[in-house]
């Protein structure tokens, strides 16, 4: 099956690089190839490209460029934010808070910190995946130093109330980290107005290149991270290493493109979601996982309890979508995110995540819905009949 035969609906996993972004990267590759840490005219071209990109990203988030540290992506940003902040504030206390519905790039860092002697409280979400700020307030202790909550859930599209949760942390002088990999460039984020101390992002989720991300570190007392890497003086030693100029330029351009079209992108996604949901309305027994009304419109996670998710995924080809389960893993464990929302194993196994993007058309959304309906009918049609009761 070649690319032209595929219908890509996995934009939450990654997005194609915007053509304007690719052009900027190509120009950068040709003209700003010098090591930006060097001290000559060619290096200054690279420095200028990086400064421009930092400005573009800062403008998208409404922060100062100096508050941004470039990383290899959201996983590294999450690691740097969580492990770095926990270590920086370890003498004040060793209690941390997060949720089991976070991305593995977050939960695995907390698990590692637990093994290193930190105490972690895992707050359960409500049925829609949302964390009640009152639950967070009740969990904060005198020795709590860091809370990490994701902005938009990668599996369900649930949008947390970052302003309220951050407000709770600010009142108690607890650092607040937000994994915003699924949010930056997709929904408006004004960090000058949000009580967020640390925020992770990655370029390839919003039409930028893979291999580049950033960590925002608020410029306020007590907000700092210990570095995870050593070996150079770049980026104030917080994240040393030669800066990848063309990737950073691509990230910056992706931010500029997103800033210019974020409202129209959202309107487009809402239309796609509406068309898709109307198309699957006739599928009996379907359950929308997450906040069906207030969530990010680009992600729709749907379960049917009586269908094997892996077979549904294959029956859905040429749609490129994601299952709610690690279907090809040796364990075949259902999604821990959906289980945390109270879904049964069967519902979690039969979950499919559809995620739409700029290139998705209304016709494709309708086709995908029709294909989903037929795939479910096919698999139900060959399933063993339930015994008569």
């Amino acid at each position: 099956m070649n690319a032209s035969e595929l219908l890509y609906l996995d934009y939450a996993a990654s997005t194609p690089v915007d053509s304007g972004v690719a052009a900027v990267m190509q120009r950068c590759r040709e003209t700003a190839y010098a090591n930006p840490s060097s001290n000559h005219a060619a290096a200054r071209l690279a420095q200028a490209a990086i400064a421009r990109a930092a400005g573009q990203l800062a403008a998208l988030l409404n922060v100062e460029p100096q508050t941004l540290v470039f990383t290899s992506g959201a996983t590294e940003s999450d690691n740097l934010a969580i492990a770095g902040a926990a270590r920086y504030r370890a003498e004040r206390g060793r209690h941390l808070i997060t949720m089991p519905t976070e991305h593995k790039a977050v939960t695995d860092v907390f698990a590692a910190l637990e093994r290193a002697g930190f105490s972690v409280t895992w707050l359960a979400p409500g049925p829609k995946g949302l964390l009640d700020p009152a639950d967070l307030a009740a969990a904060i202790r005198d020795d709590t130093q860091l809370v990490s909550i994701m902005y938009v859930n990668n599996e369900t599209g649930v949008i947390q109330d970052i302003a309220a949760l951050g407000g709770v942390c600010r009142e108690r002088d607890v650092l607040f980290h937000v994994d915003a990999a699924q949010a930056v460039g997709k929904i408006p984020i004004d960090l000058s107005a949000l009580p967020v101390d640390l925020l992770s992002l990655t370029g390839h989720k919003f039409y930028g290149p893979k291999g580049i991300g950033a960590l925002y570190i608020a410029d306020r007392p007590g907000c700092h991270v210990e570095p995870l890497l050593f070996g150079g003086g770049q980026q104030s030693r917080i994240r040393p290493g030669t800066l990848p100029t063309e990737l950073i330029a691509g990230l910056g351009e992706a931010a500029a493109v997103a800033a210019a079209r974020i409202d129209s992108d959202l309107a487009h996604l809402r239309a796609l979601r509406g068309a898709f949901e109307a198309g699957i309305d006739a599928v009996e027994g379907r359950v929308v996982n997450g906040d069906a009304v207030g969530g990010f419109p680009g992600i729709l996670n749907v379960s049917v309890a009586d269908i094997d998710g892996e077979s549904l995924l294959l029956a859905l080809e040429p749609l490129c979508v994601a299952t709610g389960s690690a279907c090809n893993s040796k364990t075949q464990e259902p999604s821990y995110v959906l289980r945390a929302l109270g879904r049964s194993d069967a519902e979690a196994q039969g979950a499919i995540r559809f995620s739409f993007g700029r290139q998705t058309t209304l016709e494709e959304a309708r086709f995908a819905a029709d294909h989903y309906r037929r795939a479910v009918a096919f698999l139900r049609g060959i399933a063993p009949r339930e015994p008569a009761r």
Partner: protein
Amino acid sequence: MSDPYSSEVRALFRAPAHAGDLEAAATGEAGDRDARVSVAARLEAGRIVAMRFRARGCPHLIAAAEAACAALEGKNAVELREFSADGIRDRLAVPAEKTGRILLLEDAIRALGRQPDGTHDLESSRED
């Protein structure tokens, strides 16, 4: 990650000609928490003249059920009781972690071979 399905698995999964029911046929069934498979056979003079299956599970299970039904039609009914899924598992390159799913198919077909209706015909076939 390489494609987990061979072209044969894909073909059998997409067009399972033997999926469905048989009237007045012996049946066998097996299942666990995540998957279930039932098979039905019509026997005449000790031979399997028609087989059908129903399955809920991964693509490999559905493809294997289709392959097994196709392979068993025309065979002596005694082969139901002695059915081994090893050949189909190898032919379809079923991943080791899915061996349990394929054994469900084996269990269902052997259960079918032990059904009273099947036993009668099996006995007849031995007299031949």
